[in-house]
């Protein structure tokens, strides 16, 4: 039964509203508007801007902006995507679908990194950085050597190994009623239970805080103090700014460490001191030197993280606005241990 036949049948059955033809609504899009939004890239390279990047450049940017989730070598930390390896695993019991082992087109890498990465700081990479990261990912997958430079000119020459293994939807691949009359009675000799969900026991139970929702503690003494000194408008502004942070840092009830440490009680905490989080050596060293997070030190750190703590794992490039930094401190002061 072809999709196209269905469409023909539907076209007859569904009454469309009157209209069609042009109503003169909307306005013409300006060329600079189209250029600003038209960011998509196709397998044939259509849409790629001028630019280039080497594997070596890519490694530097990747370690700074991507490795916190994907690992230095694209191995994936926690449950974040693995980007490299997995060759020959697609027929295995547990396939590892990476860019090298699964993705059909390199343009998809360039397009996606450019439009949606780094997670929580989308569309912040320069075109050359995207070329460089893409080159580095090719290198991690053993598809180019370390001297390689990717550019608009040579982009279409690079093919990913799994391109030929995709094919269009062949469904229906299960029986139709017309082909296999449906059995309604005495269909089976015996019925046995072959598997039970309870064996695995992975169903979430109520009572936890599964969404990681931000809940402000109000009951305890220290919180009441912190709130009395709080500028509510500033804290509210901080809640908005905090959206830039929450991809990696949790606050509130039931917090866990994510890509970054949780920030309950961060004001007053010694840098690099939270149990159970793997800090960079640089951050642990700062704590050993006596760095304690206060509104002032947090302000200095967030202005330019990599200047204040060189080699911190935090890939966030910082908050330019002093107002935003003050708002973040006010917001975070509400969350105690």
């Amino acid at each position, binding site marked *: 039964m072809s*999709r196209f036949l269905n469409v023909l049948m539907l076209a007859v059955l569904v009454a469309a509203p009157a209209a069609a033809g042009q109503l003169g609504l909307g306005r013409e*899009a300006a060329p600079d508007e189209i250029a600003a939004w038209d960011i998509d890239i196709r397998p044939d390279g259509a849409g790629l801007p001028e630019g280039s990047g080497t594997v070596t450049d890519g490694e530097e940017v990747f370690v700074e902006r991507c490795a916190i989730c994907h690992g230095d070598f694209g191995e994936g930390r926690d449950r974040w995507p693995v980007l490299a390896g997995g060759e020959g695993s697609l027929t295995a019991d547990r396939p590892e679908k990476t860019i090298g082992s699964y993705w059909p087109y390199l343009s998809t890498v360039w397009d996606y990194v450019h439009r949606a990465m780094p997670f929580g700081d989308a569309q912040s990479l320069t075109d050359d950085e995207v070329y460089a990261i893409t080159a580095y990912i090719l290198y991690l997958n053993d598809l180019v050597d370390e001297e390689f430079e990717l550019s608009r000119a040579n982009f279409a020459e690079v093919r990913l190994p799994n391109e030929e293994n995709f094919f269009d939807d062949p*469904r229906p691949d299960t029986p139709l009623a017309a082909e296999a009359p449906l059995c309604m009675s005495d269909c089976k000799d015996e019925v046995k239970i072959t*598997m039970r969900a309870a064996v695995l026991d992975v*169903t979430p139970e109520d009572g936890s805080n599964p969404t990681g929702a931000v809940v402000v503690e109000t009951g305890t003494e220290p919180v009441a103090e912190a709130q009395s000194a709080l500028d509510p408008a500033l804290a509210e502004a901080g809640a908005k700014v905090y959206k830039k942070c929450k991809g990696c840092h949790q606050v509130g009830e039931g917090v866990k460490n994510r890509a970054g440490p949780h920030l309950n009680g961060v004001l007053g905490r010694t840098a690099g001191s939270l149990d159970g989080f793997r800090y960079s050596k640089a951050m642990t060293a700062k704590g050993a030197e006596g760095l304690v997070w206060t509104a002032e030190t947090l302000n200095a750190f967030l202005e330019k993280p990599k200047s204040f703590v060189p080699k911190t794992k935090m890939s966030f490039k910082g908050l330019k606005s002093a107002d935003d930094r003050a708002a973040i401190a006010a917001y975070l002061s509400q969350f105690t241990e």
Partner: protein
Amino acid sequence: MESEKRGPSRRGFLTGGLAMGGAAMAAGAAQAGEKAILELPPWTTQLGDGVDARPYGTPSQFEAHVRRRNVAWLTADPVSSVNFTPLHELDGIITPNGLCFERHHSGIAEVDPAEWRLMIHGLVEKPLVFTLEDLKRFPRVNRIHFLECAANSGMEWRGAQLNGCQFTHGMIHNVMYTGVPLKALLDEAGLKPNAKWLLPEGGDAAAMTRSVPLFKALDDCLIAFKMNGEALRPEQGYPARLVVPGWEGNMWVKWIRRIEVGDQPWHHREETSKYTDLMANGQARRFTWEMDVKSVITNPSPQAPIVHGPGPLVVTGVAWSGRGTVREVHVTTDGGNNWHQARIDGPSLDRSMHRFYYEFDWDGKPLLLQSRAVDSEGMVQPTKDRLREVRGVNSIYHNNGIQTWHVRENGEAENVEVS
């Protein structure tokens, strides 16, 4: 006062509810009057909230357990994750807006409608920009459609895993959309003769994109701005989203900002690395758009056990097909040996959820409940074993296999598979 406390939790059902049972209640009633009748409750003697107290109404405090739930171990972070519709708490065919499952890839975009724009460009005579007000000046339509994530039931490929239809089947919702046929907007821009594909793009931090073939866009796609009569919820794409009836949910781009018209597909991340179906031989299906015929019994189910003991029992569930309407649903109580025709009640609409019922006198013995749907194209919901034969266990998406609930004598239900 007991009656003013929270609604029944799942645990409460399993302990208190089951212990009481139907027989105990009947025996008690014969001896002495029930407190619920003999004593006046506060809501009968005291004034309640006035009309100013709830300017946007919310459900009863006793329904607090009816909510979307997340499966934390599924994904790396709740910002790029999914939660599930509590199907076992609903009836009829419409999903309330606040219970429609959410799936977003970079969190909820909080789009200011005054700054929302929709651009149509590429292979068109005249590239256009629309405001929300422009959109609302086109002739509009109302359509009820289900939206199902292609990964719904995806955790069950290797066998029974999650105990509850909310988790096994809850990546679906069914609402009435009000919107403008996409064809009207494309006509306004004027398609060039070589136009064949569209690339809708979201305005969120994932800038979600999918390649949509032009024939589908011209057939029945909408740009919707209302769901169930009110503005789209932020988590469903406020102020406007794409509606792609019957096709996998990932294509229904939310917070839509742009549609590019082209002559070939873009092969973007969500149609290559994701939403392609890996077969056992290592090859992968792409562009698997239609959601095939599927059904599930929502009550009883692991989160909604039978609490009334033997006697009259209502078995109910939902069925749907991305290829048309649902023609019939069959229910078995013995694991597929004998099937009964279920009763479809309520509207039977194209690419919309259908509600079915099967009522019978339960003898209190264990049940192996299943439902099997047949759609208007004659496609039959397959067994999970049949799907595994054809596709293996690593295709993640498009698992429309028959679900089995094992109901024990005490009314509790478990997700199982049968031979």
